[in-house]
């Protein structure tokens, strides 16, 4: 693992950039644990201060330090994304591997259900969930809902890998040796499925973070918990653009774009590393 990381850093420029970018953003987010003020405190600082030596990224109209708000916000947004990713991976792996391993009717039924879920528009359903839950909506509930909607593409991918493992020699040996289905799936097949899980996790993380930004920008999440989207939401509420408080909106946008860029570069380079076909073409290049 460590060796792979070192090789990727050395020979894959996209990976190196993505890694450095993501790592620095992560460290920046980590810093919020040492913030001078609690991140939910408002009107403790002079409002609307432009960037200066004291407040590097300025302060908001709600009297918060943009720099420290962003640090917390990125942390919370990433936490949301990771929660969605982990939960939806569990679903995707369970459905994908079962479908691929069982084959036949089970496979057909599960994949039909899967394709049906793909065809449902996520955002309206999420909005409906938010609407009916309203004040009882918390970020873990939102994350669980998003995870329920975000596993189907990847279940398909995982299924196709498992399907190809089904008829391999070692599977037959395992069946013959009397291993149970869960045992076979976890001990024999999971190692082969791991790269796919890892790659889809990167893409899913990007999707989940995008979702969080989108929902909280609209105010459809816990608006008192700082998030990237939430910062933009509050800036809009205070008409920051018209009032000329540009730093309130510009810095969160820059942060989120950098975060997406970093994650995306990681995702494509990891994909290239994992995908045997692009591996071949690179060997020839």
């Amino acid at each position, binding site marked *: 693992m460590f060796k792979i990381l070192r*090789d*990727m850093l*050395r*020979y*894959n420029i996209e990976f190196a950039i993505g890694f450095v970018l993501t790592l620095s953003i992560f460290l920046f987010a980590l810093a919020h644990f040492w913030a001078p003020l609690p991140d939910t405190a408002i009107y403790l600082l002079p409002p609307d201060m432009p960037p200066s030596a004291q407040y590097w990224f300025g302060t908001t109209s709600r009297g918060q330090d943009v720099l420290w708000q962003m640090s917390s916000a990125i942390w919370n947004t990433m936490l949301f994304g990771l929660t969605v990713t982990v939960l939806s991976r569990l679903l995707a792996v369970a459905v994908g591997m079962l479908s691929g391993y069982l084959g036949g009717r089970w496979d057909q039924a599960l994949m039909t259900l899967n394709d049906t879920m793909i065809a449902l528009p996520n955002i309206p359903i999420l909005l409906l969930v938010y609407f009916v839950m309203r004040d009882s909506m918390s970020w873990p509930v939102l994350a669980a809902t998003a995870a329920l909607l975000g596993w189907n593409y990847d279940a398909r991918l995982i299924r196709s890998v498992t399907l190809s493992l089904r008829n391999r020699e070692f599977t037959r040996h395992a069946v013959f040796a009397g291993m149970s289905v869960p045992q076979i799936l976890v001990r024999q097949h999971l190692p082969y499925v791991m790269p796919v899980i890892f790659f889809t996790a990167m893409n899913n993380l990007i999707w989940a973070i995008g979702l969080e930004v989108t929902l909280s920008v609209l105010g459809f999440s816990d608006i008192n918990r700082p998030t990237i989207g939430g910062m933009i939401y509050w800036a809009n509420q205070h008409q920051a653009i018209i009032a000329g408080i540009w730093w309130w909106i510009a810095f969160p946008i820059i942060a989120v774009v950098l975060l997406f860029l970093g994650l995306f570069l990681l995702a494509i380079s990891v994909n290239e590393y994992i995908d045997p076909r692009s*591996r071949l073409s*690179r*060997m*020839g*290049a």
Partner: protein
Amino acid sequence: MLDTLQAPTTTSSMLRVEGLKAYYQMNYFGVRREVRAVDDVSLTINRNEIYGIAGESSSGKSSLIKTIAGAITPPLRVVEGSVKFDFAGRELDVYADPQAMKAARWQNLSYIMQGSMNVLNPVRRVKHAFHDFAFKHMGLSPSAFRARVEKHLQRIGLDPHVLESFPHQLSGGMRQRLTIALATVCEPDFIIADEPTTALDVLVQQDVLALIKDIQQRMGASIIFVTHDMTVHAAIADRIGIVYAGRLVEEGPTLDVFRRPQHPYTAHLISSLPRIGDNKKRSALPGKPPNLADPPSGCRFHPRCPLAVDKCTNENPPLEARLTGRVACWRAGEVQTA
């Protein structure tokens, strides 16, 4: 005739391969790998000759024939040597003159690649393939071209209606025939075929073999083809060359090679053929096929050779004329065949 020493004739040669080396050269995350799939091969093919290349899977047959056809893509690269054709006095050096090579394709030489059942575009009708490949070489009007193609198909035993089909509507045998038709419609002087019958069932295989032989005789073309199936060689090849681990280890007229193999590996290939009324248990060759990224020293066959001596481990035997053919073995001719 068997015991007369014959110098290979060069007067009517159509293809001359000299000292050819083609390697897969890969560089992946800083790790370099080199697979020596074609390693110093020289051979000559005459006018009107059918030359078969035999050898076990992964011995480099396809790599050799691709290199001869000028059909290599990275990571396969020609490292040394040359491939030269002689079309009615016009010499064509495959790797020196890409422009002339391009012009000669389908006109003078055509190539049937391995797995050729899949060479037809799945989403276009078959007729478009004939048009794209052959029309510009024929100098005919569209309607005359169509008539010519239909006549050619009929001769090969295909209903001209197949032109209007999509590949998925045709059986494997029909698709194979079609690719052969596609490769021969311009009546090239030289045909290169990689496992043209391997994916077919036995009956269809016989058909296709007869077809290839028939076309060759009618058009007077030369053919070089590859298959690991020795019975196919016995059926149509005039001469065969045996490839082991990227090297040509024996070559000669088909009958002579079958009757008196000089190389122990050839002897093994032939003795493992099923024979009617022979229930003797056949010995499998011990050991694994060599890894071409790190081939054995000396004679590459020595780790598996029943006759190997110290010299075989250290020195690479040259391919030298012997009897009616050539062989690369320090102990050539010492092998006993049943």
